């Protein structure tokens, strides 16, 4: 009996091991394509609050122009949203230039807003198109506490060079391997930290670890209201390690009528990074995203 069981276990492990060498379930090949019907536009968003907020702004702006809108908020990460855009489950969603480009081409060398926009235009999957990017961006920033900045006289990331060995860096798990993370900090800025602590993508773990002193340098996002609330210093990325992350609407070509384009371009033109910080602060206080979106549109005379 025991022999059978051991054999069974080994066979199962072997089968899994072997078959794992085949397909990659995390790749995002597109298999079923069913386009959404009618003239209504389905606005989707990723699974974090800022994406939902901007999607809401898009939706409300379009509605006020008489466009029929359906909403599918919080559908997940890019592994879900991009295939959903391709197969027509959603038609429109807000994206971040740099992160989208890295998703489409992990090897990209583009950094500035212009480089990112130019490369994105060639890499975007067929059937999808990018409208004009906003000046507003939500990019990675290396943040330190005010005390740390004063103690070591830190203003730019380069200033970390003499002290990095004494400091612990905190960031999302993907930073361990990413060029625009630990690897880039070493190759571009010649920074080698005492340790890297895998936390989350600019979320509560990272902020908590920074404030409590478990890490001294942390990866946060430029539109995070916590930066100013906690007197954190965002170090200047003088050597352009982090990609620009301008907010840009990604839309299904078939749904990109001139009314839709005009409306969304106006939204992008009006949106600023400061607006996002302010609105994120309100989201963090659990205010209704719909209300925040409507008020912003009114303040910019877009609704």
């Amino acid at each position, binding site marked *: 009996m025991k022999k059978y069981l051991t054999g069974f276990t080994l066979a199962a492990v072997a089968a899994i091991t072997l078959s794992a060498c085949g397909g990659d379930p995390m790749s995002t090949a597109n298999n079923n394509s069913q386009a959404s019907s009618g003239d209504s536009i389905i606005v989707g968003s990723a699974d974090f609050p800022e994406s939902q907020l901007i999607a809401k702004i898009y939706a409300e702006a379009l509605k006020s122009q008489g466009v029929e809108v359906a909403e599918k908020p919080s559908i997940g990460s890019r592994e879900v949203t991009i295939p959903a855009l391709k197969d027509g489950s959603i038609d429109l969603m807000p994206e971040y230039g740099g992160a989208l480009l890295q998703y489409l081409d992990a090897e990209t060398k583009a950094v500035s807003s212009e480089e990112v926009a130019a490369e994105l235009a060639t890499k975007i999957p067929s059937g999808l198109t990018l409208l004009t990017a906003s000046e507003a961006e939500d990019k990675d920033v290396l943040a330190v506490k005010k005390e740390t900045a004063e103690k070591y006289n830190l203003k730019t990331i380069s200033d970390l060079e003499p002290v990095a060995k004494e400091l612990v860096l905190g960031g999302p798990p993907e930073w361990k391997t990413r060029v625009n993370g630990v690897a880039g900090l070493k190759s571009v800025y010649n920074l080698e930290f005492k340790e890297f602590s895998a936390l989350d993508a600019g*979320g509560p773990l990272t902020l908590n670890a920074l404030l409590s002193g478990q890490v001294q340098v942390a990866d946060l996002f430029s539109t995070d209201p916590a930066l100013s609330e906690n007197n954190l210093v965002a170090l200047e990325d003088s050597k352009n390690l982090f990609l620009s992350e301008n907010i840009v609407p990604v839309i299904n070509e078939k749904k990109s009528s001139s009314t839709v384009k005009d409306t969304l371009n106006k939204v992008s033109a009006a949106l600023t990074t400061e607006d996002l910080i302010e609105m994120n602060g309100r989201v963090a206080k*659990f205010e209704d995203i719909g209300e925040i979106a409507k008020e912003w549109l009114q303040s910019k005379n877009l609704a």
Partner: protein
Amino acid sequence: MNFEWLGRQFDNIVFLLGWHVLLAVTPLILGLLIALPLGWWAHRSRRIYPFLVGVAGLLYTVPSLALFVLLPVILGTKILDPLNIVAALTIYTVALLVRVVADALDSVPQDTVQAAKAMGYRAYQSLLKVELPVGVPVISAGLRVAAVSNVSLVSVAALLGIPQLGSLFTQGFQLRFFTPIIAGIVLCVVLAMILDGLIILLNRWLTPWTPKVVAS
């Protein structure tokens, strides 16, 4: 608790609850359908019994997060496919129920089986009309365990980003906001209790001959 927030999120929470029910209940039904013939087989054959029960025990030891991750390799699905969750929980349900079904059939008194035979029941008639019904209380006790743990296991899939009530946990964590977390926990527990109660009712309905004692 921020009830205003709950009100605003009502549609979203109902959507997550719907998925949660689907992901927890489908495997329960599939698992039972698969476990019945397997359990019967184990009951009939003394040689197959230890093998089936042993394999079931092994499958049981595989942690669910691990199984959610490994199944795409075997099924050829994407990592975010809800099918992985259904398949994983079906495996657990079968693993739990195979033994329960076999033991339930074993527990049917020999006299009862003999009586059925004497009344002219054929083997399959005896199985369907006598042995299985008599085994229902034991099977439903196993089914209750499976139902309750399925509800809790589904929420683990939130760590992989598959939407269901567990998404309220990760969402609440990102916002450092207790309301969605508590709402998610309460809904999970209530859902588990409802499923548990439904199985108790089903058991009573299927076994009208048993005395009406409230099983806890």
